[in-house]
Protein backbone atom coordinates (compact mmCIF):
# COMPACT_ATOMS: atom_id res chain seq x y z
CA UNK A 1 0.00 0.00 0.00
CA UNK A 2 2.71 2.44 1.06
CA UNK A 3 4.81 1.30 -1.89
CA UNK A 4 1.93 2.17 -4.25
CA UNK A 5 1.61 5.58 -2.69
CA UNK A 6 5.32 6.27 -2.93
CA UNK A 7 5.25 5.11 -6.55
CA UNK A 8 2.40 7.50 -7.24
CA UNK A 9 4.23 10.32 -5.53
CA UNK A 10 7.37 9.60 -7.54
CA UNK A 11 5.32 9.53 -10.73
CA UNK A 12 3.65 12.83 -9.87
CA UNK A 13 7.02 14.41 -9.14
CA UNK A 14 8.40 13.16 -12.41
CA UNK A 15 5.32 14.41 -14.23
CA UNK A 16 5.80 17.81 -12.59
CA UNK A 17 9.39 17.85 -13.84
CA UNK A 18 8.21 16.95 -17.32
CA UNK A 19 5.76 19.83 -17.22
CA UNK A 20 8.43 22.21 -15.94
CA UNK A 21 10.68 21.18 -18.82
CA UNK A 22 7.91 21.46 -21.40
CA UNK A 23 6.96 24.91 -20.16
CA UNK A 24 10.60 25.99 -20.47
CA UNK A 25 10.96 26.73 -16.78
CA UNK A 26 13.64 24.20 -15.93
CA UNK A 27 17.07 25.68 -15.05
CA UNK A 28 19.78 24.92 -17.61
CA UNK A 29 21.87 22.73 -15.31
CA UNK A 30 18.91 20.62 -14.32
CA UNK A 31 17.72 20.44 -17.92
CA UNK A 32 20.75 18.49 -19.18
CA UNK A 33 20.30 15.90 -16.45
CA UNK A 34 16.59 15.58 -17.21
CA UNK A 35 17.23 15.16 -20.94
CA UNK A 36 19.47 12.22 -20.16
CA UNK A 37 16.59 10.62 -18.29
CA UNK A 38 14.45 10.81 -21.42
CA UNK A 39 16.45 7.92 -22.90
CA UNK A 40 14.59 5.68 -20.44
CA UNK A 41 11.46 4.34 -22.18
CA UNK A 42 9.35 4.63 -19.00
CA UNK A 43 10.32 8.27 -18.53
CA UNK A 44 9.82 8.90 -22.25
CA UNK A 45 6.36 7.37 -22.04
CA UNK A 46 5.33 9.55 -19.11
CA UNK A 47 6.88 12.58 -20.79
CA UNK A 48 4.90 11.84 -23.96
CA UNK A 49 1.67 11.70 -21.97
CA UNK A 50 2.47 15.01 -20.33
CA UNK A 51 3.19 16.57 -23.74
CA UNK A 52 -0.15 15.35 -25.01
CA UNK A 53 -1.95 16.72 -21.98
CA UNK A 54 -0.26 20.10 -22.37
CA UNK A 55 -1.23 20.27 -26.04
CA UNK A 56 -4.81 19.39 -25.22
CA UNK A 57 -4.91 22.07 -22.54
CA UNK A 58 -3.47 24.64 -24.92
CA UNK A 59 -6.25 23.81 -27.34
CA UNK A 60 -9.06 23.46 -24.83
CA UNK A 61 -11.56 26.11 -23.87
CA UNK A 62 -10.91 27.25 -20.35
CA UNK A 63 -12.88 29.60 -18.23
CA UNK A 64 -12.62 33.20 -19.39
CA UNK A 65 -11.99 35.89 -16.74
CA UNK A 66 -15.61 36.94 -16.58
CA UNK A 67 -17.36 38.60 -13.63
CA UNK A 68 -18.06 36.23 -10.72
CA UNK A 69 -21.76 36.06 -11.49
CA UNK A 70 -21.05 34.87 -15.00
CA UNK A 71 -18.43 32.50 -13.70
CA UNK A 72 -20.99 30.54 -11.71
CA UNK A 73 -22.68 27.74 -13.62
CA UNK A 74 -26.20 28.66 -14.73
CA UNK A 75 -28.65 27.76 -11.99
CA UNK A 76 -32.12 26.26 -12.44
CA UNK A 77 -33.69 29.41 -11.00
CA UNK A 78 -32.07 31.53 -13.67
CA UNK A 79 -33.18 29.18 -16.41
CA UNK A 80 -36.75 29.10 -15.05
CA UNK A 81 -36.89 32.88 -14.86
CA UNK A 82 -35.69 33.19 -18.38
CA UNK A 83 -38.18 30.59 -19.57
CA UNK A 84 -41.08 32.42 -17.88
CA UNK A 85 -39.89 35.66 -19.42
CA UNK A 86 -39.88 34.12 -22.87
CA UNK A 87 -43.38 32.69 -22.37
CA UNK A 88 -44.70 36.03 -21.20
CA UNK A 89 -43.19 37.80 -24.16
CA UNK A 90 -44.66 35.20 -26.51
CA UNK A 91 -48.11 35.56 -24.92
CA UNK A 92 -47.97 39.33 -25.19
CA UNK A 93 -46.97 39.09 -28.84
CA UNK A 94 -49.89 36.73 -29.60
CA UNK A 95 -52.35 39.01 -27.80
CA UNK A 96 -51.02 42.00 -29.67
CA UNK A 97 -51.39 40.24 -33.01
CA UNK A 98 -54.93 39.09 -32.22
CA UNK A 99 -55.86 42.62 -31.12
CA UNK A 100 -54.43 44.19 -34.24
CA UNK A 101 -56.18 41.67 -36.46
CA UNK A 102 -59.55 42.19 -34.72
CA UNK A 103 -59.23 45.96 -34.91
CA UNK A 104 -58.36 45.79 -38.59
CA UNK A 105 -61.41 43.62 -39.20
CA UNK A 106 -63.68 45.97 -37.31
CA UNK A 107 -62.38 49.10 -38.96
CA UNK A 108 -62.81 47.42 -42.34
CA UNK A 109 -66.53 46.82 -41.63
CA UNK A 110 -66.95 50.31 -40.24
CA UNK A 111 -65.26 51.79 -43.23
CA UNK A 112 -67.64 49.95 -45.56
CA UNK A 113 -70.81 51.03 -43.75
CA UNK A 114 -69.57 54.45 -42.82
CA UNK A 115 -68.56 55.38 -46.31
CA UNK A 116 -72.03 54.66 -47.67
CA UNK A 117 -73.66 56.73 -44.94
CA UNK A 118 -71.20 59.51 -45.43
CA UNK A 119 -71.81 59.59 -49.17
CA UNK A 120 -75.56 59.72 -48.64
CA UNK A 121 -75.20 62.47 -46.06
CA UNK A 122 -72.99 64.46 -48.41
CA UNK A 123 -75.53 64.04 -51.17
CA UNK A 124 -78.17 65.35 -48.80
CA UNK A 125 -76.11 68.35 -47.95
CA UNK A 126 -74.95 69.14 -51.47
CA UNK A 127 -78.03 68.58 -53.56
CA UNK A 128 -80.61 71.42 -53.57
CA UNK A 129 -83.26 69.19 -55.10
CA UNK A 130 -83.53 67.29 -51.87
CA UNK A 131 -85.47 69.99 -50.10
CA UNK A 132 -88.97 68.95 -49.31
CA UNK A 133 -90.54 71.77 -51.34
CA UNK A 134 -88.75 70.97 -54.53
CA UNK A 135 -89.27 67.33 -53.97
CA UNK A 136 -92.95 67.85 -53.57
CA UNK A 137 -93.12 70.01 -56.67
CA UNK A 138 -91.32 67.56 -58.79
CA UNK A 139 -93.45 64.68 -57.67
CA UNK A 140 -96.65 66.72 -57.98
CA UNK A 141 -97.46 66.43 -54.33
CA UNK A 142 -98.85 69.15 -52.21
CA UNK A 143 -98.06 69.20 -48.60
CA UNK A 144 -101.31 69.61 -46.75
CA UNK A 145 -101.99 70.05 -43.09
CA UNK A 146 -104.20 66.98 -43.13
CA UNK A 147 -102.18 63.75 -42.99
CA UNK A 148 -99.07 65.72 -42.16
CA UNK A 149 -97.44 62.91 -40.21
CA UNK A 150 -98.08 60.32 -42.83
CA UNK A 151 -96.80 62.58 -45.60
CA UNK A 152 -93.70 63.48 -43.60
CA UNK A 153 -92.98 59.85 -42.97
CA UNK A 154 -93.42 58.97 -46.60
CA UNK A 155 -91.38 61.95 -47.67
CA UNK A 156 -88.59 60.97 -45.32
CA UNK A 157 -88.39 57.46 -46.67
CA UNK A 158 -88.54 58.69 -50.25
CA UNK A 159 -85.92 61.29 -49.46
CA UNK A 160 -83.47 58.60 -48.46
CA UNK A 161 -84.21 56.58 -51.53
CA UNK A 162 -83.80 59.62 -53.74
CA UNK A 163 -80.58 60.42 -51.97
CA UNK A 164 -79.30 56.96 -52.66
CA UNK A 165 -80.22 57.29 -56.33
CA UNK A 166 -78.56 60.66 -56.36
CA UNK A 167 -75.39 59.18 -54.97
CA UNK A 168 -75.39 56.57 -57.68
CA UNK A 169 -75.89 59.24 -60.29
CA UNK A 170 -73.05 61.24 -58.87
CA UNK A 171 -70.86 58.14 -58.89
CA UNK A 172 -71.87 57.33 -62.44
CA UNK A 173 -71.15 60.88 -63.47
CA UNK A 174 -67.70 60.63 -61.94
CA UNK A 175 -67.02 57.35 -63.63
CA UNK A 176 -68.23 58.65 -66.98
CA UNK A 177 -66.43 61.84 -66.93
Amino acid at each position, binding site marked *: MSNDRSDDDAE*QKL*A*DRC*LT*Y*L*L*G*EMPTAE*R*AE*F*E*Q*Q*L*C*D*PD*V*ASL*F*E*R*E*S*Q*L*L*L*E*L*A*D*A*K*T*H*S*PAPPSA*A*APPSNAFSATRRVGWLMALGAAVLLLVGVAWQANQSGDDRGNGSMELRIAQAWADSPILSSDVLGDELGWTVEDDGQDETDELTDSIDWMVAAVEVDNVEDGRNDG
Partner: protein
Amino acid sequence: MSDSGSFDDDGTQPPTEGIEVQWRELIEEVRPGLRSFLTAKLPQAADVEDCLQTVILAALESRPQIPESARRAWLFRVASNEAALYWRKKKTTDRVLEKHGQYHVTADERTAANTFETKETADRIQRAISELSPDVQRIVRMRIQENLTFQQIADQLGTPLGTVLTRMRRAMERLRNQFKDQA
Protein backbone atom coordinates in the same frame (compact mmCIF):
# COMPACT_ATOMS: atom_id res chain seq x y z
CA MET B 1 19.89 19.44 -42.76
CA SER B 2 22.68 18.99 -40.30
CA ASP B 3 23.07 22.73 -40.01
CA SER B 4 19.35 23.42 -39.83
CA GLY B 5 19.77 24.74 -36.33
CA SER B 6 22.26 27.45 -37.25
CA PHE B 7 21.00 30.81 -38.45
CA ASP B 8 22.07 34.40 -38.85
CA ASP B 9 20.40 36.50 -36.26
CA ASP B 10 21.05 40.13 -37.08
CA GLY B 11 18.05 41.26 -35.09
CA THR B 12 16.39 42.97 -38.04
CA GLN B 13 14.09 40.24 -39.33
CA PRO B 14 10.54 41.07 -40.33
CA PRO B 15 7.79 39.47 -38.17
CA THR B 16 7.49 36.25 -40.21
CA GLU B 17 11.22 35.67 -40.06
CA GLY B 18 11.07 36.56 -36.39
CA ILE B 19 8.71 33.65 -35.82
CA GLU B 20 11.07 31.37 -37.72
CA VAL B 21 13.92 32.56 -35.53
CA GLN B 22 11.84 31.76 -32.45
CA TRP B 23 11.25 28.24 -33.72
CA ARG B 24 14.93 27.77 -34.59
CA GLU B 25 15.98 28.92 -31.14
CA LEU B 26 13.49 26.59 -29.55
CA ILE B 27 14.63 23.66 -31.67
CA GLU B 28 18.23 24.29 -30.70
CA GLU B 29 17.24 24.36 -27.07
CA VAL B 30 15.31 21.09 -27.11
CA ARG B 31 17.40 19.22 -29.68
CA PRO B 32 19.25 17.17 -26.99
CA GLY B 33 15.94 16.34 -25.34
CA LEU B 34 14.38 15.32 -28.65
CA ARG B 35 17.36 13.11 -29.41
CA SER B 36 17.12 11.38 -26.02
CA PHE B 37 13.38 10.98 -26.41
CA LEU B 38 13.75 9.38 -29.85
CA THR B 39 16.57 7.20 -28.55
CA ALA B 40 14.10 5.69 -26.13
CA LYS B 41 11.76 4.86 -28.98
CA LEU B 42 13.96 3.86 -31.91
CA PRO B 43 16.56 1.08 -32.23
CA GLN B 44 19.30 2.71 -34.29
CA ALA B 45 21.14 6.00 -33.91
CA ALA B 46 20.71 6.60 -37.64
CA ASP B 47 16.92 6.22 -37.28
CA VAL B 48 16.99 8.68 -34.42
CA GLU B 49 18.82 11.24 -36.54
CA ASP B 50 16.47 10.72 -39.49
CA CYS B 51 13.41 11.26 -37.30
CA LEU B 52 15.01 14.25 -35.61
CA GLN B 53 15.61 15.93 -38.97
CA THR B 54 12.04 15.21 -40.02
CA VAL B 55 10.73 16.83 -36.85
CA ILE B 56 12.91 19.91 -37.31
CA LEU B 57 11.87 20.22 -40.94
CA ALA B 58 8.19 19.89 -40.05
CA ALA B 59 8.50 22.62 -37.43
CA LEU B 60 10.34 25.04 -39.68
CA GLU B 61 8.05 24.46 -42.63
CA SER B 62 4.71 24.63 -40.85
CA ARG B 63 5.51 26.88 -37.87
CA PRO B 64 2.08 26.10 -36.37
CA GLN B 65 0.22 28.88 -34.64
CA ILE B 66 0.14 27.47 -31.14
CA PRO B 67 0.82 29.15 -27.81
CA GLU B 68 4.51 29.43 -26.98
CA SER B 69 4.01 27.38 -23.86
CA ALA B 70 2.86 24.40 -25.94
CA ARG B 71 5.54 24.53 -28.64
CA ARG B 72 7.92 22.15 -26.90
CA ALA B 73 5.06 19.73 -26.37
CA TRP B 74 4.19 20.00 -30.06
CA LEU B 75 7.77 19.15 -31.08
CA PHE B 76 7.81 16.08 -28.87
CA ARG B 77 4.39 15.05 -30.13
CA VAL B 78 5.65 15.22 -33.72
CA ALA B 79 8.71 13.22 -32.68
CA SER B 80 6.46 10.62 -31.09
CA ASN B 81 4.33 10.40 -34.24
CA GLU B 82 7.41 10.01 -36.41
CA ALA B 83 8.70 7.23 -34.20
CA ALA B 84 5.31 5.49 -34.42
CA LEU B 85 5.34 5.92 -38.19
CA TYR B 86 8.79 4.37 -38.32
CA TRP B 87 7.52 1.26 -36.57
CA ARG B 88 4.41 1.09 -38.72
CA LYS B 89 6.48 1.31 -41.89
CA LYS B 90 8.83 -1.30 -40.58
CA LYS B 91 5.96 -3.62 -39.75
CA THR B 92 4.47 -3.07 -43.18
CA THR B 93 7.80 -3.70 -44.85
CA ASP B 94 8.25 -6.90 -42.90
CA ARG B 95 4.79 -8.05 -43.88
CA VAL B 96 5.41 -7.19 -47.50
CA LEU B 97 8.61 -9.14 -47.47
CA GLU B 98 6.82 -12.05 -45.93
CA LYS B 99 3.82 -12.06 -48.22
CA HIS B 100 5.36 -10.46 -51.30
CA GLY B 101 2.37 -8.21 -51.44
CA GLN B 102 2.25 -4.47 -51.81
CA TYR B 103 0.85 -2.22 -49.17
CA HIS B 104 1.67 1.34 -48.25
CA VAL B 105 0.60 3.26 -45.19
CA THR B 106 -0.41 6.64 -46.47
CA ALA B 107 -0.50 9.90 -44.60
CA ASP B 108 -4.28 9.95 -44.99
CA GLU B 109 -4.62 6.61 -43.26
CA ARG B 110 -2.45 7.84 -40.44
CA THR B 111 -4.50 11.02 -40.08
CA ALA B 112 -7.82 9.19 -40.17
CA ALA B 113 -6.71 6.79 -37.49
CA ASN B 114 -5.65 9.60 -35.20
CA THR B 115 -8.60 11.93 -35.76
CA PHE B 116 -11.20 9.98 -33.79
CA GLU B 117 -8.80 9.33 -30.93
CA THR B 118 -7.80 12.99 -30.82
CA LYS B 119 -11.39 14.18 -30.67
CA GLU B 120 -12.25 11.75 -27.90
CA THR B 121 -9.24 12.89 -25.90
CA ALA B 122 -10.11 16.52 -26.44
CA ASP B 123 -13.66 15.90 -25.18
CA ARG B 124 -12.33 14.16 -22.09
CA ILE B 125 -9.95 16.98 -21.34
CA GLN B 126 -12.69 19.53 -21.87
CA ARG B 127 -14.91 17.74 -19.36
CA ALA B 128 -12.06 17.49 -16.87
CA ILE B 129 -11.31 21.20 -17.20
CA SER B 130 -14.94 22.14 -16.66
CA GLU B 131 -14.86 20.29 -13.34
CA LEU B 132 -12.07 22.52 -12.04
CA SER B 133 -13.00 25.59 -10.05
CA PRO B 134 -13.11 28.85 -12.04
CA ASP B 135 -10.07 30.21 -10.17
CA VAL B 136 -8.00 27.19 -11.03
CA GLN B 137 -9.21 27.19 -14.62
CA ARG B 138 -8.09 30.78 -14.83
CA ILE B 139 -4.59 29.93 -13.64
CA VAL B 140 -4.31 27.06 -16.13
CA ARG B 141 -5.49 29.29 -18.94
CA MET B 142 -3.15 32.15 -18.03
CA ARG B 143 -0.15 29.86 -17.84
CA ILE B 144 -0.76 27.58 -20.82
CA GLN B 145 -2.83 29.56 -23.27
CA GLU B 146 -1.59 33.07 -22.51
CA ASN B 147 1.97 31.99 -21.68
CA LEU B 148 2.25 34.16 -18.57
CA THR B 149 4.85 33.25 -15.99
CA PHE B 150 3.66 32.13 -12.59
CA GLN B 151 4.98 35.36 -11.11
CA GLN B 152 2.95 37.39 -13.62
CA ILE B 153 -0.13 35.33 -12.81
CA ALA B 154 0.40 35.86 -9.09
CA ASP B 155 0.78 39.60 -9.64
CA GLN B 156 -2.32 39.84 -11.81
CA LEU B 157 -4.50 37.83 -9.46
CA GLY B 158 -3.05 39.38 -6.30
CA THR B 159 -2.36 35.88 -5.01
CA PRO B 160 0.88 34.64 -3.42
CA LEU B 161 3.19 32.86 -5.86
CA GLY B 162 3.19 29.71 -3.72
CA THR B 163 -0.61 29.53 -3.86
CA VAL B 164 -0.61 29.86 -7.64
CA LEU B 165 2.02 27.12 -7.97
CA THR B 166 0.14 24.82 -5.62
CA ARG B 167 -3.16 25.32 -7.45
CA MET B 168 -1.54 24.71 -10.79
CA ARG B 169 0.20 21.59 -9.57
CA ARG B 170 -3.01 20.17 -8.08
CA ALA B 171 -4.96 21.01 -11.22
CA MET B 172 -2.41 19.27 -13.39
CA GLU B 173 -2.36 16.31 -11.02
CA ARG B 174 -6.11 15.97 -11.32
CA LEU B 175 -6.15 16.39 -15.09
CA ARG B 176 -3.21 14.03 -15.40
CA ASN B 177 -4.95 11.30 -13.42
CA GLN B 178 -8.12 11.55 -15.49
CA PHE B 179 -6.07 11.59 -18.66
CA LYS B 180 -4.07 8.58 -17.51
CA ASP B 181 -7.11 6.57 -16.37
CA GLN B 182 -8.89 6.93 -19.67
CA ALA B 183 -5.83 6.72 -21.91
